[in-house]
């Protein structure tokens, strides 16, 4: 018995020793220690929020990802933001007008303060756009922009190199940062505005935005505590404290909501939608999203894929309605083109086409009556039910004689394989950062061009000069009616040529306790506006 105790004691000492080696832990202090609670705490509501990830940094320009944008909307405010109906809502910009075909003038809200106490001015907007142009992730999106000009303290001209129809779309990404706060050098001598992806930096652990919430406490990957900023200009919401816990595991996240440990979760996995919906005291909000899931048919690797008839046969053989109903449990929207309804290029004439007889007929016409063999890869942890979708697709192609050898892998390995085009059919999902139709084609289906970066994810090697010229033309077309017509034509060509195999748009989902206006704050961009949340 003594020896056992001795052994346990040794283990304990060893583990203590291990922990003892740890360097002094720096508590990640927020930019501004909370000074005084202006409002009595009694009025404040607390929201316990669980997402599948937490912000990777406090610097909004470090990475362009859904999680970072959700964070930006809480702690920073954009010039304009998306409204539910797809229009733009004024935020830090109260109004805007076109001065000429390359310039948009924004009139800024007066009396806005940053969390540091510095006043917000046009200079901060200029500074922020310049910083965006140096960020690896945002550089591409802000390529069309020239440095902005401050007209006076509350007016700023945003200027593009060419006429640019998506200027306002991009303005939703301009979350002005406190230029004074981020200027100078930190303790290690590094400039405070440095954008550092994998190492320590001032901006990674400090923030000063104009948003409703300040970061009061943060332990990366464990939790973030947001506190309402007393001097915030917009009084729409009534939540004072948000405790964000990242819960990656689907089952655990749902259990946390069902057991009442958290008040709000996003996303809700498809297999639990019914359960959440039918639970007393919970509400579920779902929306059709704009992330399309597609298969690309590689024409360089597989000769039959060069024949439009074979590609059409594959599209006709793909029962994407069946996949949505069975694999996705109805939690997706059947697609037959890239952009969903409400997007510029949405072409209402195009309809899903599943017709096995016609598919067989087309294969016969193309001279592949006996089918052929090909390879395919798909990720198994990137899109909702990605692996199951791929398996369903394989069995569907089997019906028209195409034998597919499928290999699935985790996303950490998938993208290298995708880029190397190791298989004849490759799965890819896409959500346009610009919230615009042209972006799908630019990345997925334009002729591959290493110089311009077009067709960066075009592993089908589809190339059509007409499509290219229409899309490039749409970039500088500011007459939106004309522009829409161009993009709709693009969708039609891609549809007729069966340039890719469309499956569906993933739906978005949020669930919360009842008694809050969840429906109102959620949107198709998946940036819930927590600043507007009202808990009864």
């Amino acid at each position, binding site marked *: *018995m003594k*020896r*056992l105790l001795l*052994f*346990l004691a*040794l*283990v*304990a000492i060893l*583990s203590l020793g*291990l*922990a003892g*080696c*740890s*360097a*002094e*832990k720096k508590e990640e202090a927020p930019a501004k220690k909370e000074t005084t609670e202006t409002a009595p705490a009694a009025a404040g509501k607390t929201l316990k929020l669980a997402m599948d990830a937490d912000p*990777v*940094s406090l610097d909004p320009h470090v990475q*362009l*990802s859904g999680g970072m944008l959700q964070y930006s909307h809480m702690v920073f405010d954009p010039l304009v933001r998306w409204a539910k109906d797809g229009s733009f809502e004024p935020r830090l910009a109260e109004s805007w007008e076109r001065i000429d075909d390359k310039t948009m003038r924004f009139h800024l809200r007066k009396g806005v303060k940053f969390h540091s106490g510095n006043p917000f001015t046009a200079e901060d907007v200029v500074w922020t756009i310049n910083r965006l142009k140096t960020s*690896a*992730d945002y*550089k*591409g*999106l802000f390529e069309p922009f020239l440095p902005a000009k401050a007209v006076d303290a509350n007016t700023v001209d945003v200027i593009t190199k060419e006429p640019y129809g998506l200027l306002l779309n991009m303005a939703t990404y301009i979350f002005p940062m406190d230029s004074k706060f981020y200027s100078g050098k930190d303790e290690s001598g590094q400039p405070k505005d440095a954008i550092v*992806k*994998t*190492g*320590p*930096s001032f901006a*990674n652990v400090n923030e000063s935005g104009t948003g409703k919430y300040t970061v009061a406490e943060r332990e*990366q*990957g*464990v939790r973030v505590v947001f506190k309402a900023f007393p001097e915030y200009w917009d009084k729409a919401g009534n939540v004072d404290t948000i405790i964000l*816990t990242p*819960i*990656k*595991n689907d*089952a*655990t996240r749902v*259990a*946390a909501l069902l*057991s*009442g*440990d958290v008040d709000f979760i996003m996303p809700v996995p498809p297999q639990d939608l019914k359960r959440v919906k039918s639970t007393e005291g919970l509400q579920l909000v779902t929306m059709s999203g704009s992330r399309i899931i597609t298969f690309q048919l590689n024409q360089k690797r597989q000769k039959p894929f060069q024949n439009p008839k074979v590609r059409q046969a594959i599209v006709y053989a793909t029962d994407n309605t069946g996949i949505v109903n069975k694999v996705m449990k109805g939690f997706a929207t059947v697609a037959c083109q890239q952009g969903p309804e409400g997007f510029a290029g949405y072409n209402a004439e195009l309809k899903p086409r599943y017709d096995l007889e016609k598919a067989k007929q087309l294969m016969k016409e193309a001279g592949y009556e006996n089918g052929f063999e090909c390879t395919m890869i798909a990720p198994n*942890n990137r899109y909702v039910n990605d692996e199951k979708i791929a398996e369903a697709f394989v069995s569907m192609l089997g019906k028209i004689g195409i034998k597919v050898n499928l290999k699935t892998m*985790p*996303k*950490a*390995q*998938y*993208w*290298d394989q995708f*880029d190397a085009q190791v298989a004849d059919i490759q799965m890819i999902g*896409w959500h346009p*950062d610009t919230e615009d139709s042209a972006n799908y084609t630019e*990345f997925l289906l334009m002729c591959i061009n290493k110089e311009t*970066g077009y067709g*960066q*994810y075009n592993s089908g090697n589809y190339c059509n000069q007409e499509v290219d010229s229409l899309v490039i033309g749409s970039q500088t077309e500011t007459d939106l009616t004309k522009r829409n017509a161009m993009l709709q034509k693009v969708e039609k060509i891609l549809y007729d040529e069966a340039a890719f195999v469309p499956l569906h748009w993933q739906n978005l989902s949020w669930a919360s306790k009842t008694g809050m206006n969840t429906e109102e704050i959620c949107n198709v961009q998946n940036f819930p506006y927590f600043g507007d949340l009202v808990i009864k």
Partner: protein
Amino acid sequence: MFAFIVRRIAQAIIVMLIISFIGFAIKQSFGDPVREITGVSVSAAEREKIRDELGLNDPFMVQFGRFMQGAVKGDIGRSFFYKKSALEVILSKAPATLELVMCSALIIVIFSIPLGIYSAIRPKALFSRFVMGGSIVGVSIPVFLTAILMIYIFSVELHWLPSYGRGETVNIGGWRTGFLTVDGWRHLIMPSIALSSIMLPLFIRLIRSEMMEVLENDYIKYAWAKGLMPKRVWIVHAFKNTLLPVITVGGVQLGTMIAFTILTETVFQWQGMGFMFIEAVERGDAPLMVAYLVVVGLIFVVVNTVVDVIYGLVNPQVRITGQK
């Protein structure tokens, strides 16, 4: 004895070297960390630039050499995701795992010894049969299933216990402990039961079989013949000699427990090293993965070495035959 200890330590160092090499070698096939830290629309050229900056394009041996140079100084790389030294991240997560393992070890010790002894002394009793049957079931149900079932029953249906996380923690000199708050204890109950569910049956069976073997020995029969108190025979004479193999297995299993924490922690969102490792794998956070493998390897090696040394102290006649 001294020579023996030196030999064991030298072996341990060689094992550590091999572990770091293998860990470093598999990191290459874990995919591309740069993908995880950039948005989708970042150009290939930009990505290449980042890879260069991180030294990911250097030949394998150069990277390994750089890693070893750092490791000698106690720096085993920097996590891409946490943006600080990997060792710091691991050490900040270690308390959670160690508290969980400690609690589970406690549960195992408290339950396995009496149950094991009882079922060895009264192998035919109904209760013993029940324990043995139960232990087979316990061994065969995977940890994550036990965990999910418990969450379902106690959190979702009954609302008795919290379903995820560590709850309130108190920071004592960098060690975040959940032992000092009621909330912390409530959060600890289910994960530690889930984690011990795998090992407990094993230990019960181990103690039982060892004890039964010992009870057959001549000296026990002699003790009975002397008319000693049954308690004294069982606890002092028999159980003491059962302990040796149990300690050995215990040491090895403690390492296994640390490995099993990966599953438990993932299900309960328990912010420990195992959960951190799984997330690092998903994010392709290579330096953190390697660092974890090295640290866990170190724990294994140290525990095994210590157990062997203790064993040598307790029973000098035993021929040590290296790693179990």
